[in-house]
């Protein structure tokens, strides 16, 4: 799931300062699950903004709308009219949603209300941790289901480095050493041989380093053309 964090209030206020009518737009996808950009959070932020406006005697309309997914034309098309009505959209979707709505070619600027932080998992109420970097070349099969790219601070393929102590990473005693976890898991699985040999340098071309990524499935595209 995509995890996000609400931007600080001053930054949000600055970004919509010039707008007379603002649409606070939520998404029922990941950001609802991680409780940062769903219907509830939209209501809270909108109310908070109205309180601030009223306290300043500012007459500005703040409207609320939460759609199924901001990264999908199917759900955005029906609400385009609403987007056109406002001076600014304050989107609480992840960066993907913000861009998708921005890219529709409407004159309405879309600004982010959250920072998209990482791809992670909800471990407990109010606790999320990073699990994947979408690097495009999964090694979980070798590393016992623990990702060294996302979870080792140095993304080492032949860890642990000398900074691993008592199961923790050198950068922070609250960060687990991914390679200690990998070692322990593989040991439990009887698969330590997976990491006994040198894992050769990988290509990062599949990752962001290779430039913005595109995925094309010709089989699906041809079907859609036939249907279309």
């Amino acid at each position: 799931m995509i995890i996000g964090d609400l931007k600080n209030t001053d930054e949000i206020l600055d970004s919509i300062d010039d707008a007379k009518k603002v649409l606070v737009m939520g998404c029922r996808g990941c950001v609802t699950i991680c409780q940062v950009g769903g219907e509830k959070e939209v209501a809270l932020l909108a109310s908070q903004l109205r309180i601030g406006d009223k306290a300043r005697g500012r007459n500005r309309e703040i409207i609320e709308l939460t759609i199924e997914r901001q990264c999908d034309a199917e759900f955005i098309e029906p609400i385009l009219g609403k987007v056109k009505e406002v001076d600014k959209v304050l989107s609480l979707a992840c960066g993907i949603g913000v861009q998708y709505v921005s890219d529709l070619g409407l004159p309405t600027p879309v600004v982010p209300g959250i920072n998209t932080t990482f791809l992670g998992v909800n471990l407990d109420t109010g606790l999320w941790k990073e699990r994947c970097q979408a690097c495009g070349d999964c090694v979980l099969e070798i590393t016992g289901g623990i990702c060294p790219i996302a979870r080792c601070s140095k993304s080492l393929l032949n860890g642990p480095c000398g900074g691993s102590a008592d199961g923790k990473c050198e950068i922070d005693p609250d960060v687990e050493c991914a390679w200690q976890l990998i070692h322990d898991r593989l040991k439990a699985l009887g698969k330590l041989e997976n990491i006994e040999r040198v894992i050769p340098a990988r290509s990062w071309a599949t990752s962001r380093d290779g430039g913005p990524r595109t995925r094309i499935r010709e089989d699906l595209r041809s079907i859609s053309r036939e249907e279309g």
Partner: protein
Amino acid sequence: MSDNGYKSGSNLEKIFAMGEFAVTGECGPPKGSDVSVVKKKAEHLKGYVDAVNVTDNQTAIVRMSSIAASKILLDMGLEPVMQMTCRDRNRIAIQSDVFGASALGIKNMLCLSGDHQKFGNHPGAKNVYCLDSIQLINTIKTLRDEGKVMCGDEVEGETKMFIGAAANPFGDPFEFRVSRLAKKVEAGVDFIQTQCIYNMDKFKRWMKEVVDRGLHEKCKIMAGITPLKSLGMARYMAKNVSGIEVPEEIIARMKAAPKGKKAEEGIKIAVEQIQEVREMEGVAGVHLMAIEWEAKVPEIIKAAGLYPRPSPSA
């Protein structure tokens, strides 16, 4: 391989080839371009060590480049061990810098992961880790032995490097530490310098496993020694430096030493440690890291009976 079968023909390599107990020192470049800092540190070391490690932005604090400082040492007649971390360079920059270093006459290098930038003076920097230290070793070995860069393209001219790496016998998981050393050997490392040793018992256990697996015959192991300047330093190392263990007995010794004699006690401990590791099977040298205390290196080396240094004939 040319030059009488030497991989790099570096002084350090020759010392090992002679079967001598090798000694390396360390020089941290200045936080700027002040050449005098490098020269001053190097003067203390000259004649007392076989080669000098030149750190690469250690603890992620911006300093004069390791390559440039290494060249300054070369010009002074000292042999550098150029450190190189994977933190700041991708495979393009790494290979390019190694060509440059080799062209300048640098013949030893140490392949490191590098301290995470979080501790340095630019915690907002983007790190690279295009390669890890083990892949770096292998990259340099391929440059040297096959004359090829990573992609397989032929290299113009020779890149003769004596390839070193670090090992931390005190990192966790302890049981995997020797395996990781074995991976460095598999990748093609020629020599190893260990993290500072204070916990001699643990080092012995690690060393025994190294010898049991025959790794000491495939690469030269140098034991890392850092003299303690003060009780405060001992406590700081014990508490704040990841991957370093300072046993209570060492702290007790520093504590018991009378005021004004703490540094002397620290040096005494270092000399004893050198003598102790020298007796251990598989230890081929010491790496003396006298951090901002280079002036004491001659005294320590002499007291440990490692002076004068042998000079291999070219």
